[in-house]
């Protein structure tokens, strides 16, 4: 439909009263796309890091997300196993094939049955890493990749996310900036970036909020406190 494309652009330019090669307009667009300047960012999203962590926990807890804080990666398998026991869940976990998760001391909990791969219709529990936490709204940022099947964020009833306190940032802008820096330009942008704010919900029947519409009914965060309190204090201005 190349003809349609041309007609749409002609119509747009008629309305704007200028041609396609307008230098001033092109310059304005280039400037905005290269500056990637932030607009107004709320105060709440610009706190020092220790307060960001506190706000993040407050926000996700208010969304009915549960959080278990652990001192180091070594404690993650225990935290995961405890969660399964608490909710009377089977010991089968569908895990992202991610290096950091594989490196955890799973041998401490030999009864856990880990399998790796994308989400399946029957999975009850998934375990994935996170890319960032956003304190402003209690949002988790996760993305796709060879080690990150995104279906794991949606198919199971219970989604367990492993997050480090050092990955928590204030605003969405902070998290996007971090992702851009990590992937190194739009060419390497992942297929999918999921920003998850609480468990799946719907209010489509009489406006009554119900959890677990199609995605996870429960969301659980194992938070590794990798920023020592004194180091975090020192970061403060």
């Amino acid at each position, binding site marked *: *439909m190349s003809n*349609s494309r041309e007609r*749409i*652009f002609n119509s*747009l330019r*008629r*309305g*704007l*009263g200028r041609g*396609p090669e307008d230098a001033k*307009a*092109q310059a304005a*667009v280039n400037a905005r796309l290269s500056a*990637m300047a*932030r*607009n*107004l960012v*709320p*105060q709440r999203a610009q706190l020092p890091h220790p307060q960001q962590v506190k706000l993040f926990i407050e926000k996700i807890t208010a969304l009915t997300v549960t959080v278990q804080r652990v001192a180091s990666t070594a404690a993650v398998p225990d935290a995961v196993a405890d969660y399964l026991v608490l909710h009377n869940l089977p010991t089968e976990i569908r895990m*992202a094939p991610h290096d950091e998760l594989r490196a955890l001391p799973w041998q401490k909990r030999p009864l856990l049955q880990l399998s790796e791969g994308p989400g399946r*219709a029957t999975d009850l529990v998934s375990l994935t890493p996170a890319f960032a936490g956003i304190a402003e*709204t*209690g949002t988790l940022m996760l993305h*796709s*990749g*060879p*080690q*990150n*099947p*995104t*279906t794991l*964020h*949606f*198919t199971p009833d219970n989604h367990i996310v492993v997050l480090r306190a050092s990955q928590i940032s204030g*605003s*969405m802008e902070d998290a*996007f900036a971090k992702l851009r820096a990590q992937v190194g330009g*739009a060419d390497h*942008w992942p*297929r*999918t*970036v*999921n*920003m*998850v*704010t609480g468990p*799946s*919900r*719907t*209010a*489509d*029947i*009489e*406006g*009554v909020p*119900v959890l677990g*519409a*199609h*995605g*996870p009914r429960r969301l659980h965060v194992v938070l590794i406190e990798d920023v020592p309190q004194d180091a975090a204090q020192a970061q403060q201005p």
Partner: protein
Amino acid sequence: MSAHITSPAFKDNAKAALADPNLRKAMAIIAGPMAGRRVESASELPEFEALRDEAVKIKNHTLAHMDIYLERFEAAATARGAHVHWCRTPREARETVLALCRSRNARTVTKGKSMVTEEIGLNAFLEQHSIQPVETDLGEYIIQLAHEPPSHIIGPALHKTREQVAELFEEHHPDYAPNGIKPGPRSTEPQTLVSEARAVLRERYFQADVGITGANFLVAENGATMIVTNEGNGDLTQSLPKMHIVVTSIEKVIPTLEDVSTILRVLARSATGQEMSVYTTVSCGPKRPDDADGPEEMHIVLLDNGRSEMLGGELQELMRCIRCGACMNNCPVYQSVGGHAYGWVYPGPIGAALDPHLIGLEAAQHLPNASTFCGKCQEVCPMRIPLPKIMRHWREQAHDKRITPPMQRWGIEAWAWLAQRPALYRLATRIGMTALRAVAGSKGRLRSLPLADGWTAQRDFPAPQPGGSFMAQWKSGRRR
């Protein structure tokens, strides 16, 4: 053969809606909790009003450079491996989607919520061509079972009561038996009904050959499309099948992720009162070669349908709309008659302003009049769209193009003639008031009045009180 239009029958639709007890119950939810949640969440963010101003600025800048941002979006999306299809009309968009589905020999397609697919009447078209569309958003699923159009842009089935939903489920999943046990009389608890829809739709996601979603934003920076949802159905729809088709419209383009971040801060708060919707997803091309999951193909179908003609004119500001639904949640007319009465895809104040352009003023002539001009829609619109001004524009157009009935036009012209002659106008109102008082007698009310049976059919018309007109009282210094 876009979505079916009943807008010309707005008056009859509204009358029927007012007499429907189920609808009264549903509308109380919209006017109560739904409108209330927006106020709460907006008041919890001190910067909310300033963020609205920022959001307006972003969209105004984008619209002023819309052609260039669309080109940049297209180039970036193409570089990520997505295919962009430009469609001027609903027909072109439907045929593009059909051809894509056929290229995969698709028999079922799952669908995330998309108002643009409603606008182009996609479901009926696919069905005619032996492709089964399965709506997966709970509200859309319910109305698909009921063969009804959506009544609200973010809560398509809010006009249905829980009893009606339970009946539909009984009819359509008679064999539903969780854990192999067929339950007794079906529960009407929303929690139980949601679990049932979840279980039934779960298999469909995995069976589908193609997944169709809409888009809330098109990001020029990296060529991504974005969806904002609560249920997670859109994400399952776009990550499980081999092909992901995004059907959306050209005005969704936004420069950068920073700009998106700002607009997201006002979107969910205005829509449902959440700070963020549960799932905000950025999708960029098909799966990468080494990715563990994701679609092999991604197609973006961009519909114009007259939007490009809105640039540079009276309607340009409508393209700032982010489809949050705040205007309808807060509209006294919508709260009374519901979405179906408007008779086309976009109801409420945004529909009253937009539909005349999309389906023609002739068909939509009643919609700009379905307003008390209370201004609440403009007050709550996160993008500060001057909806009453645009409705007034359509009323003037209807008058100038002689679409309104002759009696009405002559009446307005006569009034305008009189109103431009203040002395004569005051004399006429004095005579009119005296006459009305005389006819009303001691009761001070009139049971019927020529040309005003729209009022007097329901209630008496109060006769003017002694003391003179407002103008006369003002002049005599009785100001309070």
